[in-house]
């Protein structure tokens, strides 16, 4: 039996989770929410995490009814992410591990998402679509690594959504993506946007500029003459959110399907914060149904950054023999999914 505690704080969420051999004992989280029109900045985010972390540790221990001495390993997010919040949380994890006299393990955030998704859904060896604020990747396991088959060549999908939410100044509570999804549900008219798929890669920056121009044509006039369409009618936020989602999600489903055909896979797992979007799940579900494949997705507890996924990936590493020296218990902003050697079984055992 292994009990692991996980600390996550690579972006604007701080989460702590406790897991015992795949059984979730606690999964608590706080989100740093900024006013409409603004994003979260590194320094302020780190400060938020520092203010929340001790209360969350107490809460996680209370909820799980676990005593520190029962814990076998302390896990934390090593990267990728924003340096100041990563560091703030890593320092706490290191201190706790020293105080409690436990080994420490730094975990790749993306591997955390994938392994938690597999645990919760029971997906065996899926093609993984990893979509979040900073990531857009299509991943499949082969020969001890999660390999990246497709990814964004510029900005991440979540970044595209967040930045558009700032353009039209909608609330960041609970998340910009959630509020775009709600507006999109009321959208009816589809505005054509660029559609940028290159092989198994995608690109969002052109779409972001184009939809920004459609939302605020007066801003674009200085650089570019207005189209007749812009003058006649200003698109509603609902229609814009709808058009944005329909376009970018279609691109994601397309590259996921291409990767599945490429790898001969018949399972899809969606992970990462954008993965809780119900329209994305619906579209992916239709694609899977049409090709006789199975879709696996999770809800916001596990999709959105959380501590339990770090605990679980750390547990897998720990039980298969990975150990970390104190000197290596650092953080890194860049840490690719395919850098990690996977020593546990993926796929049929």
């Amino acid at each position: 039996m292994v009990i692991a505690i996980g600390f996550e704080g690579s972006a604007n969420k701080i989460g702590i989770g406790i897991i015992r051999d795949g059984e979730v004992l606690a999964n608590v989280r706080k989100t740093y929410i900024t006013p409409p029109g603004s994003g979260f900045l590194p320094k302020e985010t780190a400060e938020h995490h520092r203010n929340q972390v001790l209360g969350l540790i107490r809460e996680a221990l209370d909820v799980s009814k676990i005593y520190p001495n029962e814990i076998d390993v302390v896990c934390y997010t090593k990267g990728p992410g924003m340096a100041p919040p990563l560091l703030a949380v890593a320092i706490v994890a290191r201190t706790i591990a020293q105080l409690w006299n436990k080994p420490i393990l730094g975990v790749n955030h993306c591997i955390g998402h994938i392994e938690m998704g597999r645990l919760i859904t029971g997906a065996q060896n899926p093609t993984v679509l990893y979509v979040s604020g900073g990531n857009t990747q299509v991943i499949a396991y082969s020969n001890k690594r999660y390999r990246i088959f497709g990814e964004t060549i510029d900005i991440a999908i979540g970044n595209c959504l967040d930045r558009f939410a700032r353009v039209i100044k909608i609330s960041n509570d609970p998340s910009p993506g959630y509020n775009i999804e709600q507006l999109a549900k009321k959208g009816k008219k589809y505005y054509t946007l660029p559609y940028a798929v290159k092989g198994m890669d995608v690109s969002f920056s052109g779409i972001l500029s184009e939809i920004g121009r459609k939302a605020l044509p007066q801003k674009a006039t200085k650089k570019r003459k207005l189209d007749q369409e812009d003058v006649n009618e200003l698109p509603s936020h609902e229609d814009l959110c709808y058009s944005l989602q329909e376009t970018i999600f279609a691109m994601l489903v397309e590259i996921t399907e291409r990767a599945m055909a490429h790898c001969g896979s018949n399972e899809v797992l969606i992970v990462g914060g954008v993965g809780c979007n119900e329209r994305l799940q619906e579209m992916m579900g239709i694609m899977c149904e049409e090709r006789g494949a199975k879709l696996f997705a999770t809800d916001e507890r596990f999709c959105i950054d959380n501590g339990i996924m770090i605990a679980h990936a750390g547990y897998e590493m720990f039980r298969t023999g990975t150990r970390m020296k104190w000197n290596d218990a650092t953080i890194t902003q860049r840490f690719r999914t395919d850098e990690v050697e996977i020593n546990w079984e993926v796929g049929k055992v």
Partner: protein
Amino acid sequence: MTEIVLKQGAEAKLYIGNYNGTICLVKERFVKNYRLPELDKTLSKQRIKAEQKSAKRCKDCGIKAPKIFHADFKERKVYMEYFDKAITVKDYIIEIQKDEEQIKLICQRIGNVVGKMHENNIIHGDLTTSNMLIDKNENDYELIMIDFGLSSYSTSNEDKGVDLYVLERALISTHSNLPQLFDEIIVHYKESYQASDETIKRFEEVRARGRKRTMIG
């Protein structure tokens, strides 16, 4: 005549058909119900057009590609020349992977053809070894380029750089045991493309962007 399905991919079904009495290959694009019908229609039309145009452009500048006999937008079908003895470069590379000389030769062919495409401002859009064929029965084979659905015409170094980036990543994921392929291809890419320096510089930028991205969340 019963339909002989050759391949059923993510986007299209390919089968042997008949166009005005000649045996041909029919590529039929599926309706994708996950996306809005208007988006689906636009994309399918765009891709059929691209398939038609770029295959022709390639042929015009001396690159072997299937002759397109006819495009039927309503039925979403393209009728094209069928290379019945051809195999994909993907399968060919797997077959010859231990033969260094042959690997060098195929890299030369790939580099030369991709260079020539970029010289002529043809962006393939999905450069993988599944989208290149060779007819091995010929003594000195010529590369056949196919699958132009994502292709475009562009003079931009960014577009060409991204094209190379897609190729590099496809090689890494499909032929991970032969890490030398891409560099070897680039050597010969330069031979057939005058302004290759600029494009390669841009390609390196595109690649660096991927590595530098911090990936938050």
